[in-house]
């Protein structure tokens, strides 16, 4: 039994100009203690897949079809009230912009204690002790000072550490990280990734890691799914996808990611490669046939690729 099982998820936005199918038939599962990466470009539906799990929706957004099972329960059918007990308790989230993700009018202490007191019946003394523990766990120097500070007094890296501490407050089974390091510079990014991997071991938390950065995903994930146009185009273990990417879109993502270790590829070369690969894969057709489920071709153990192609390289 997987910790998280998403079956045929469809998430739609109802707009005045019609329905936008942000997530259009996504199926995946995440095992306990593992990290699953979701990669894809902006608009591929990766964030909305994550938002669907906790139903952190806009007013015009809904799950049109599909189910989400978490820890054996079908949370996609949960009421708002039932979801409140899951959010921040068993499933937590951290976001892309740490500087704007903390409430500017409350202290670090208030925001951390709130997370604790919402879900655990702690008296304020125990909650405070736990808050210090959490700040130490995320390696915040000088917690006595930081705890009294407001978000505008923290750097981006510090804010993200506070966000992580807040997310881990109730020892969740699943942490959803939506591009948690995109807004940070590379050094801080490396520190935060290292910290997340350490905490994952320590708290035995599974992570759903969303990013467009293949370099980041290679350090974090056990398995990867690649999304495009609201659908999964390829899913594979992390090593497999770097060695043996099959889908033209995956190859295209790889090409866009300049790897200095193999061969210095100039941006122009990367773009040339991108357009030559484009000819094999009919992107517009993929969008138009968006409602049809792709056929799946198994490449290897746990390595599947969608066969919605003009000329499939494998077939």
């Amino acid at each position, binding site marked *: 039994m997987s910790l998280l099982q998403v079956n045929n998820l469809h998430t739609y936005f109802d707009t005045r100009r019609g329905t936008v199918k942000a997530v259009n038939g996504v199926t995946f599962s995440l095992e306990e203690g593992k990290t699953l990466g979701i990669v894809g470009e902006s608009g591929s539906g990766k964030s909305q897949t994550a938002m669907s799990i906790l139903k952190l929706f806009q007013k015009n957004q809904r799950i049109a079809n599909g189910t989400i099972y978490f820890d054996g329960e079908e949370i996609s059918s949960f009421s708002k009230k039932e979801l*409140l007990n899951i959010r921040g308790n068993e499933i937590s989230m951290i*976001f892309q*912009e740490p500087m704007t*993700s903390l409430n*500017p009018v409350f202290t670090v202490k208030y925001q951390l204690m709130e997370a604790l007191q919402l879900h655990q019946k702690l008296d304020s003394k125990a909650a405070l002790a736990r808050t210090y523990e959490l700040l130490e766990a995320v390696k915040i120097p000088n917690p006595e000072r930081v705890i009294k500070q*407001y978000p*505008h007094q923290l750097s981006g890296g510090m804010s993200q550490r506070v966000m992580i501490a*807040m997310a881990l407050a109730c020892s969740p089974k699943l942490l959803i990280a939506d591009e948690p390091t995109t807004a940070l510079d590379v050094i801080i990014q490396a520190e935060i990734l290292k910290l997340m991997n350490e905490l994952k071991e320590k708290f035995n938390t599974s992570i759903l890691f969303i990013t467009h950065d293949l370099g980041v995903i290679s350090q974090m994930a056990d398995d990867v799914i690649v999304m495009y146009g609201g659908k999964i185009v390829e899913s594979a273990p992390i090593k497999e996808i770097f060695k043996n990417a099959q889908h033209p879109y995956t190859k295209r993502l790889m090409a866009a990611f300049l790897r200095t270790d193999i061969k210095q590829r100039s941006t122009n070369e990367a773009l040339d490669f991108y357009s030559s690969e484009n000819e094999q894969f009919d992107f517009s057709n993929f969008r138009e046939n968006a409602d049809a489920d792709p056929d799946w071709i198994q490449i290897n153990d746990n390595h599947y690729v969608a066969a919605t192609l003009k000329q499939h390289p494998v077939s």
Partner: protein
Amino acid sequence: MFRYIVKRILWLIPILLGVSFIVFTIMYLSPGDPVTMILGEGATEEAYQALRTQMGFDQSFIVQFLNYVRGVVFDFDLGRSYVSNRVVLDEILVRLPNTIRLASWSILFATLIGIPLGVISATRPYSKVDNVVMFISLVGVSMPTFWQALLLIILFTSTLGWLPASGFTSWQQMIMPVFALATSSMGTIARITRSSMMDVLDQDYIRTSEAKGVSDGRVIFQHALRNALIPVVTVIGLQFGALLGGAVLTETIFSINGLGTMMVNAIRTRDTMVVQGGVLFIAFIFTLVNLCVDILYAYIDPRIRSQYD
């Protein structure tokens, strides 16, 4: 913070000096001779000159101004009314309670109704409820206060006979003026609250609080409202200041003996000293209200607080 407040209080000095200089100049240049007004047309030349010297009008403009300022600063002396010969400060203080009561009740109602209406609208944008609330507040803002006051009198006094049309001592007398005055402020406050709240509800930290498992009510009133309050507090402060200084029409229509009525009468009778003193006093209150608003900012938003330090 303390230093900031002291600094702001010290700033009151040049502001009030500036205000009094402008008012003094305008009154100095405006036509009409107070001495003739007091003595009447048929006074002898000697009596005229004697009173002119006694009141200091034979001196230069600057000397007159400095004398006036000295009186205000050292003796709290705003002079005497040319018409009634009463002390201007007493005239103001007699009427101040009525004005403060009217302005306070009005702003209190406007705030207590306007903010919740704005919040309700912001949480259901473009819905029927939102449309109704925004329509009501638009009417509130657009309808001239004096016209509203007249309509109220026609309905509740002339037709139904439920409420008295004048005076300001019993609560029955207070209902109509407070209502007439509160509606426009209420409309403004509701609209500002709505737009500010809608801005805040789109922010990342609201999504964070939802992801934490905070209930909708707490998200709105605890996490969002406080962030949305800065522009609302600004508007409330400005409206309150304006109400204190010049609910002129409302006071006149309901025969309330407040600062507005006093000022209108003083202007009509060219009672220079009362006009001067009144404007200075209202400017003083207005700047005090603004100071309170700025201190409130710091209380609401820690980012502003750290700017003050």
